[in-house]
């Protein structure tokens, strides 16, 4: 009889692992198996995070830490130096606060729109409609595109001599320079980012919808419960955990928005679509006014806000889960 390779491998590694477990205990064993993942996480996340923090306490234009001078919390003080936080121009780093307020407004509208559109799409795709698989693929397709490609496609549609204006002219309408208008540009960044990512969230919600037991809907149908009540009393509560995941992910992604907007509007017109990540990129890497320490401080502040938002969101969703269980 030929021994399967896996069995053979198990026989080989089993004795030393048992020995190791006896020596370290069960917790030590768990730590041993977690080690590779933790090492990767440490190298690619924790160490850069720590380095970023160290950078934020330094100043100068040099990139190597050994060539930079320690300035403590000076970069943070500069970022937070503001006469009136609601008036970015009264702040020392006015562009940071402009980017922060733009990001806040963007996240509020984009995340709301994203959840609404993804939920509606998931509800539709969960029904027995003709060509359901095709539509699922269609809605997911933009997720597969590179953000730069997404930005370029929509730029070609929205620019002065773009597809949209061509269609408008053909319909006898006045063309509009969409990307030169503050309002339209802002709306475009919300619409384009929603279009690009909604497929992913739709998929999560669709999985949640399909996990809801069918007998609940059958019971509701037998009781002649109106569809809106079914949605409010069955679908929404049972979809709660998935909605919480979508909310947290969309929120994080919304705050981190960069690639497609950078290609589409470049942060303009003026600074109307300048979001935090572009500000950090500009200050850290691209700008003729480069200041890596300030960029690092801004990214730490942004990271802290994200952590707070995520924790608040998780705590809310846990509370709603517990309420649901009761």
């Amino acid at each position, binding site marked *: 009889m030929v021994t399967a390779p896996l069995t053979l491998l198990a026989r080989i590694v089993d004795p030393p692992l048992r020995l190791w477990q006896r020596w370290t205990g069960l917790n030590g064993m768990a730590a041993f198996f977690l080690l590779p993942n933790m090492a990767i996480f440490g190298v690619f996340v924790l160490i850069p995070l720590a380095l970023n923090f160290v950078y934020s306490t330094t*100043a*100068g*234009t*040099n*990139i*190597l830490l050994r*060539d930079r*001078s320690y*300035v403590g919390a000076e970069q943070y003080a500069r970022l937070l130096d503001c006469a009136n936080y609601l008036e970015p*121009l009264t702040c020392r780093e*006015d*562009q940071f606060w402009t980017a922060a307020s733009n990001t806040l407004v963007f996240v509020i509208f984009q995340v709301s729109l994203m959840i609404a559109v993804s939920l509606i799409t998931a509800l539709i795709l969960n029904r027995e409609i003709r060509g359901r698989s095709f539509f699922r693929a269609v809605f997911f397709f933009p997720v597969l595109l590179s953000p730069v490609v997404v930005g370029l496609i929509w730029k070609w549609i929205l*620019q*002065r*001599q773009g597809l949209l204006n061509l269609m408008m002219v053909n319909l006898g309408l006045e063309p509009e*320079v969409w*990307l*030169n208008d*503050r309002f339209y*540009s802002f709306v475009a960044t919300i619409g384009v980012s929603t279009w690009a990512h909604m497929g992913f969230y739709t998929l999560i919600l669709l999985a949640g919808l399909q996990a809801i037991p069918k007998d609940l809907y059958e019971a509701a149908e037998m009781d002649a419960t109106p569809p809106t009540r079914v949605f409010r009393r069955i679908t929404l509560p049972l979809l709660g955990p998935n909605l919480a995941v979508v909310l947290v992910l969309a929120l994080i992604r919304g705050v981190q928005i960069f690639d497609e907007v950078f290609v589409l*509007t*470049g*942060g*303009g*017109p*003026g*600074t*109307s*679509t*300048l979001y935090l990540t*572009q*500000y950090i990129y*500009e200050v850290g*890497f*691209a*700008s*003729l*006014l480069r*200041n890596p*320490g*300030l960029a690092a401080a801004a990214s730490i502040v942004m990271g802290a806000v994200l952590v707070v938002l995520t924790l608040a969101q998780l705590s809310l969703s846990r509370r709603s889960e517990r309420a649901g269980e009761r």
Partner: protein
Amino acid sequence: MKLLHTSLAALALAGFAGAALAQDPTEIRIQWYSDGIEGEVMQDLLDRFEEENPDIDVVLDNVAYQVIQEQLPIQLASGRGPDIARVTNLKEQAQHWLDLRPYLSDEQVAYWEENFGNRFDWMREDGSDAIPGFLTQLTMVGGFANATLFEQAGVEMPGDGATWDEWVEAAAQVMESQGTAAAFAIDRSGHRISGPNASFGANYIAEDGSPAPIDDGTMEFVTKLVNWTNEGLQLPDVWVSAAGTTYRSGADDFINAQIPLLYSGSWQVANLSTTIGDAFDWVAIGSPCGPAGCSGLAGGAALVAIEYTEHPEEVARVMDWLASEKIVREFSERTLFLPAHAGIVEEGGLEFQSDDPNVPPALDRFVQASGETLPLADQLPAWRWANAYYGALVTRISQAMAGEITLDQARELMDQDIADVVANANQ
């Protein structure tokens, strides 16, 4: 026995010789970006170099300009990078350039100093006598006009010595007549508007070499530019629709005949010639005038040796070959770039390889414009804080154009931005 010994010795010798011949050539990597066809021309020249120097293998890494601007500085800061690079940010990164002087003979040093020496200060630290590289092209900021559109509109092009107001007014007439999107566009770059600022009497440099506060000369041209944009005369797509210091060129809109006037620079000549073809006639117009003069701004891209190369001697051989008069002449003639080689400029007689009748007069006009620059424009390429000024100008003017801040606020913020850069750099 003697025969056997002789045969063995011959075999051993042949083996050593073979091993020496088979030894891999030294690899030299050049990081290169292209505006037009210069990458192909350089590759062709390097193939020839390799034929003449089989012990050196030169690899030309063609990258986007953004890589040179954003990734190369990080490589250099970490003590890595290519052996040679083509860069435009010459002064700020001067500490990373290799001094070729120790690797050149006295005769070669004399040649370099005689022909490129007048611009070494653009690419070396203040007070240094290093020979870091040479300009592959001298650029001159200046304008282009769509002669066909002017002709169709029946508008006469203002001649040499015409002011900015006169040019914009004429272009506005063409815009109205021909229904173009705007009258003109200036590239979104602080560098590009610094020549015009100088023409309006601007001074960026204080007596001690530090940045001077934004003055009335700068504000006079900036105010005009903002007003022209708000009136729809300058194409807003170039300046308004971006934040920060993002570079945007108006060349595509000129090529598509969306604007009759473009203010960019001599490096666009090959691009315009290739992409416009015979679609319309265009002319170079130099720089329109302000009260103080008709200044553009000189600049250039340089090929520099990198300090961290492991093969400085081979790098010096490649650089010296590429800097030779014959090669510089051929490179300029084929790429339609203005040479920065003093001997070639003095001798003249460049035969630019283009069938396009628009090209020779355009290049002549840029050569003429290079003699019209004002003192500030001549100082800026070698001035340490030029980029700080350019960055502040482009960031804040765009905001003023978008109506986010007033011109007074823009002036205040530009001073603050520049002061911040100086303070950070001095830490």
